[in-house]
């Protein structure tokens, strides 16, 4: 296991509920450190997105606390696009924290935006319209926007869920690189294989039990994943490209002959 830096995000007995009866999450303890990638897994409607919003400071936890050390960048799945901004306009908005209320972004801000585009491999798209991009490209631009704000922690809401396989790989390997450069990263996903690919640790949020946090291998056992989604799985171990790989295969009820 890699050595991680100081803790960036700390949840202590955190919970969130709108009405005090149904909880999106409850009694959650979690520490994410610099250089660490943490995948959040759980069935639909289990409060993964709410957890990210609370961690980003957009909502207060109903109980307990979630404290971030350093700025937090949130990468949404998508957003309401009303006006045809260019990619560069959008990435520049990530600098909002660093630009005074009545000021315009300056040379330093433009440099940070350009650097963020370079890190995500999107420099060539700077003057393109955001709406003309593919889903994968949009996700990379939104990540660039968050990075431009120079956060210590990056929270991503299903960054790879709606993407094709090639783009999933682009986004996942970018997350790994960013963590290796010292960011603390938390992302939600519906794909246990995404966690196997890049996550040091997993936070599993099962439907009717307390959330479970730990190293990826310890948490993602076949039994636990089956309990998480109500579907049995099998873990395959095999050699490919000179490396030993693990892959989690769902055992769907229906099988074609």
């Amino acid at each position: 296991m890699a050595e991680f830096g100081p803790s960036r995000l700390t949840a202590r007995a955190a919970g969130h509920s709108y009405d005090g009866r149904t909880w999106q999450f409850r009694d959650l303890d979690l520490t994410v450190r610099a250089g660490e990638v943490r995948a959040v897994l759980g069935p639909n409607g289990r409060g993964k997105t709410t957890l990210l919003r609370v961690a980003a400071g957009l909502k207060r936890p109903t109980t307990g606390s979630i404290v971030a050390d350093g700025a937090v960048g949130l990468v949404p799945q998508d957003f309401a696009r009303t006006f045809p901004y260019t990619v560069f306009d959008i990435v520049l908005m990530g600098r909002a924290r660093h630009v005074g209320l009545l000021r315009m972004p300056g040379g330093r801000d433009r440099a940070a935006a350009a650097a963020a585009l370079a890190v995500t491999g999107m420099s060539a798209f700077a003057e393109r319209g955001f709406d003309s991009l593919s889903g994968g490209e949009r996700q990379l631009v939104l990540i660039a926007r968050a990075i431009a704000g120079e956060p210590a922690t990056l929270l991503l809401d299903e960054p790879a869920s709606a993407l094709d396989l090639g783009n999933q790989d682009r986004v996942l390997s970018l997350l790994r690189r960013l963590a290796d450069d010292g960011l603390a990263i938390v992302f939600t996903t519906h794909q246990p294989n995404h966690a196997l690919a890049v996550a040091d640790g997993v936070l599993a949020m099962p439907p009717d039990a307390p959330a479970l946090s730990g190293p990826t291998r310890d948490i993602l056992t076949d039994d636990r994943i089956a309990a998480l989604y109500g579907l049995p799985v099998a873990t395959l171990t095999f050699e490919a490209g000179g490396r030993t790989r693990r892959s989690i295969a769902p055992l769907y009820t229906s099988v074609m002959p």
Partner: protein
Amino acid sequence: MTTAAPVSRSSGVGATGLLLLLLVVAAVASLGLGRIDLPFARVVAVLASPWLAPDPPVTALEWSVVVTIRLPRVALAVLAGGGLALSGAALQGVFRNPLVGPQVVGVSSGAAFGGTLAILVGWDRTGLVAAAFLFGLAALVLVYGLGTLVARSNILVLVLAGVIVSGFFGALVSLVQYVADSQDKLPVIVFWLLGSFATASADKVGLVAGPVVVGGVALLLLRWRINILSMGDEDAAALGVPVERLRWIVLVLTAAIVSAQVAVSGIVGWVGLVVPHLARMMVGADHRRLLPASMLAGGLFLLAVDDVARTVTAAEIPLGILTALIGTPVFAFLLQRTRMGGHG
């Protein structure tokens, strides 16, 4: 979804410069337009005469026509048009809806009620401005309160609340007209509501300039933040922007600008809705360029419309009628062009 291609930075800047040049030329040309026709160069000579004595010397008539009579009117048209279009562009940004304008969010009808009430009661011009601002802002507060009551931070609900509040103040305006003395007060109210710069004076320019210049400068300073507000409340909050507070500031500034305009020249519709669309086609969506361009284009547009209003026929055509007659087909065309996608 998108049809409008982003406009490149350099062409956007060029378009803004061109608009500024056009506005200056149009303003000078407008000073020469009217029953006493003065060529462009002569207007420039008259304007420069306090510093550069022209040959032949400027007559008292020329000075009075250009500076005393026409300059206030031209200034009023530019300030009102610029203020309305700037407010419209800012409102479209913060409401994340290119179909929003000062009329849609209730400010215009609130200010109209304040103004008609002031005329009915017989207040002087300052009282009229104050009443227009008070009720313009009240309308905005009602819209905002109603929107928040129904669904917190829901933009569509805010717009619907604007429709409700506009309807309410519209009814109050009708009530004032109904009870107003039909010989004395009613014609004043009706012509004021139709909108005109015919009664322009240095006093009126002074009244409208304060709110428009102060509000306009503040909006221009906030124009990059409006970009961020236009991304949606949650996204803007995640980027570290205090959404509610900032939106309030923008709303109060636009209320001040629009009320001041309504107070001196009545309801001039469609400028705040249509001009930002045209500006967006010229300089792109980025509010850093859109707000200055909208302001210049709005001033230019209303100046041109007012030139038509005062020169085409002997009896002046009310401004509100002209802007609606021009604005509605242009807006329909823009809607068709953008294929209802909401992009300008």
